[in-house]
């Protein structure tokens, strides 16, 4: 089987330089097509869902901002796609450090903005920024960088696992203090998953899970009510206001939706219709087919991300691409699960679709990094430059 072969050898046969392309287009092209389709859908749906938002009189308020942010975020993505991703291998600590500083800043009452009893937002001039967005990338870079710079650390408990764990738990702890349980768990799981992929001994990971139990216990004790409410919501999804209206929105959509713009649940029934619950509006207006389209786009996006990771010529690129793909893919999964009442509610956005300028910039920056990985591995494959560890091309 060909794909098993690729799995073995790290990359598909390189495209013939100058020759006609064969088979599928390159993964980064598929990736970009997915991103553009999702952004297009996002622009339409943000306009549709945000036009009736309670606090603004202008129906075009969110559309205008979305259209303003798209080129900015596009430029950010382009910039990151041009930067050699191997730079982060050296500077991952700086990224982690700045993420930690921002996470601390957001906790200071005079600086961080409180929304729904959580300090998650950092005002940045007229804009707002969620430091936990940066924390996700930073943790991916940390694990990828730390483990690929000295691969032997993976086999060392004291010199490898423990420092990495402390760094990750430090970030997770800061996020927990906001408090933002959902993102904290997400970041932690992301780090653990990436360590697993990197080749960290499973025993260590199990041990870390054991170590996390007391932290979790303390948190649960402090925030029991919130947690209880969320899990109750999972069992009785229609008892929770947002979920009930999300389900009504999805359910009234049917197979092909009530028509673009005709959602009723966005008329102030659905809270955050243009952000976290935008899929519900998509489901109501465009129906099951619309939702399925979104899921398929994310699946293809994840697939092309995986292809980029697998074709990477170095461990760092592989881990970075894997981490970013997991981050985007799983975040979409969690968001859709919440919207369908399959997971407890938490403020997790649908990447690329949800309205939000800084979030969009962060996501497109990650896409840019993926493109950078793809671009460099392609050009190295083309020039026949192999990895030092393995033969570049066995033919």
């Amino acid at each position, binding site marked *: 089987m060909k794909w098993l072969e690729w*799995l*073995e050898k*790290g990359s598909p046969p390189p495209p013939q330089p100058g020759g006609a392309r064969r088979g599928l287009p390159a993964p980064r092209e598929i990736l970009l097509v997915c991103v553009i389709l999702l952004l297009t859908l996002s622009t339409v749906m943000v306009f549709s869902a945000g036009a*009736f938002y*309670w606090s603004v009189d202008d129906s075009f308020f969110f559309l205008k901002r979305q259209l303003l942010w798209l080129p900015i975020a596009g430029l950010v993505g382009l910039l990151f796609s*041009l930067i*050699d991703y*191997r730079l982060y*291998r*050296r500077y991952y600590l700086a990224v982690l450090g700045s993420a930690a500083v921002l996470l601390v800043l957001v906790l200071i009452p005079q600086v961080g903005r409180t929304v729904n009893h959580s300090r998650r937002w950092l005002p940045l001039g007229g804009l707002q920024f969620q430091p936990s967005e940066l924390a996700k990338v930073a943790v991916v870079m940390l694990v990828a960088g730390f483990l*690929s*710079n*000295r*691969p032997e650390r993976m086999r060392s408990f004291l010199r490898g696992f423990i420092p990495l764990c402390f760094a990750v738990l430090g970030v997770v702890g800061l996020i927990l203090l906001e408090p933002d349980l959902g993102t904290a768990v997400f970041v932690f799981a992301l780090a653990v*998953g990436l360590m*697993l*992929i*990197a*080749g960290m001994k499973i025993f260590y990971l199990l041990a870390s899970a054991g170590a996390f139990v007391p932290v979790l216990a303390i948190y649960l004790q402090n925030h029991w009510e919130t947690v209880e409410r969320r899990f109750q919501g999972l069992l009785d999804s229609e008892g929770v206001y947002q979920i009930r209206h999300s389900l*009504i*929105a*999805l*359910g*009234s*959509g*049917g*197979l092909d939706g009530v028509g673009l713009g005709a959602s*009723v649940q966005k*008329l*102030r029934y659905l809270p955050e219709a243009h952000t976290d619950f935008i899929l519900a509006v998509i*489901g109501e207006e465009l*129906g099951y087919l619309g*939702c399925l389209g979104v*899921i398929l786009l*994310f*699946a293809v996006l994840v*697939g092309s*991300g*995986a292809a980029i990771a*697998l074709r*990477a*010529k*170095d*461990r*760092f690129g*592989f*881990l970075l691409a*894997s981490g970013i*793909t997991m981050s985007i*893919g*799983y975040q979409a*999964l969690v968001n*859709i699960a919440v919207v*369908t*009442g399959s997971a407890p509610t938490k403020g997790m956005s649908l990447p690329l679709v949800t309205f939000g300028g800084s979030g969009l910039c962060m996501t497109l920056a990650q896409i840019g990094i993926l493109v950078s990985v793809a671009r*460099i591995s392609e*050009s190295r494959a083309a020039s026949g430059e192999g*990895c030092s*560890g*393995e033969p570049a091309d066995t033919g």
Partner: protein
Amino acid sequence: MRSPGSKSCQIPPEEGPGRLSRVYLVLVLGALSAGYGALAVRLWCIQVLAHQRYSDLGREIQRGTDRVEASKGDIISRDGIILARSLQSFELGLDPSKMSREGIIEAVQTLFSRLEEPDEVRRDRLEDALRRREKGGRYVRLARDLDEESVAALKKSLAERLSREDARAVCCLPSSHRVYPHGALVSQLLGACDVEGRGIEGLELALDPFLRQQSGRRLVIKDALQRSRIYYPQSSEVRPIDGYDAALTIELRMQRILADELERGIDTFKAAAGLGIVMDCRSGAVLAMASHPSYDPGLYHLYPSEEQTERRRNRGVESAYEPGSVMKPVVASMALEHGLTRRDELIWGGGDSRRLGPRVVRDVRDHGPLTMEEVVVYSSNCGMSELGLRLGRDRLIDALERFGFGRKTGIGLPGERSGKTRDREAWSELYTSVSVSFGYAVMVTPIQLCTAFCSIVNGGYLYRPRILAHLDRPGERIENPPEVVGRPVREETSRQMREILLRVVQEGTGKYLQMDGFLFGGKSGTADMGPLYTKENYLASFVAFAPYENPEIVVLVMIEKPKARSYYGSTVAGSVVASVLRRYYRVEDEAYIVTVNRPS
């Protein structure tokens, strides 16, 4: 963009991902894909399988019904001028239970500083609002009849001065208010509506069932704040029904002339009150009906309260008088009708008084011997008493009955009085028959008198007086056609009476009212208003028909208690009637045209 080789030497040698890593990645992302698949199935369950259930649930939450306002009918004059109309407006109020005390005070101050209402009103409203706040009231109306612009301006200034919470408790409701563009001119006729728009007086009350609109209902989709956002254009809705527009027989030009002249006459003779009616004698349509003192609906609250009832009275139908000599044509025509006399029969031998048993009937002066015609022309009570005695009780009672006295005319105005005639049992030949012959011992309303006079001059047809011409609604019209309710005299009697009444103006009591080139007939009346007949309070009346050749209109003017210059009906009321005719028929204009066109 590739890193230079020298730099990549500094970092540890690159190493491709191991086989296990690749497998793990595929596993992790495979799990993700499985998750996507599961969600796709879950979405299928929600969106396709449970579609009906969630649609129903949603509909239950979102659907509501909204009132669809219809508009109340207009009242329009015969010449097409709007006399009353409902305008869409807004009222501004607040929910005191949701406001702070300071907020209420600030809101009321801000509002009234822009509304230019008197201070007392502001104080009342403030006290009201604060009191209701104590009692837990939910709504206090602050201002009504505001247009859209002023509401927006007021809301803006309130939003600036109040805190967010307080400003949210201020609300604006759609309402409508009734406007009367020609307020004072027709105020008593039209009457008034209450705050809810229901007619409570005058034509507004009488026509309320027709003018009244029926609001409709329609299904709507409401947003989470219960505000309607979407209508179902095709949905089953109760159609709103607009009220009928009521077209009156009132001619605004005539109404204005009559009201003007009446007021001028009352001022000139320093009278207490007065009324005028103009009726189309060919159909019974009331062309004008004025009553003085009157009121301007916009200034109503400014009149002293003891005056308010008096000003609201529409004397044309709501007052009854002993009319005096203006009744003489009624009795005279009936004597002719029954053949009890002829125009040229000498029925009074002269003298200024007549003794009838213990009673003495007096004339103003001695007119010498008078024929029956001259009795009416010079308004001799002595001569009339002879006609009264010849007619006698039964024929007089029958006459009053045939001319419609003693019962409501059915004009359709609320508060109409029926007047009063002496009962057969209480009727005494000597007193009642004699008194009735010159207009005493019988209470008549001006509208009755006017209607009766119409029938005397129009060939004997007693019409039901009408003030409503027709009711209109798109595609629908309800007519209120002329209706003959009796035929008290024959054509011949009517013709003779017209000639007699012309002579009244040409050489009798009304000879000072003559106009060049314009003939009209009439009868004056000067009645002692009683109740003790002390010759202090007179009722000066004049009733005329015009033009003489082809009678179109009957004008009746009655003026109560004139105190200056004169109290005679021919002078006080007659001058008003003459001015009305002159202005209505543009008599002087015509004379002028005749003059310039005459070849010389």
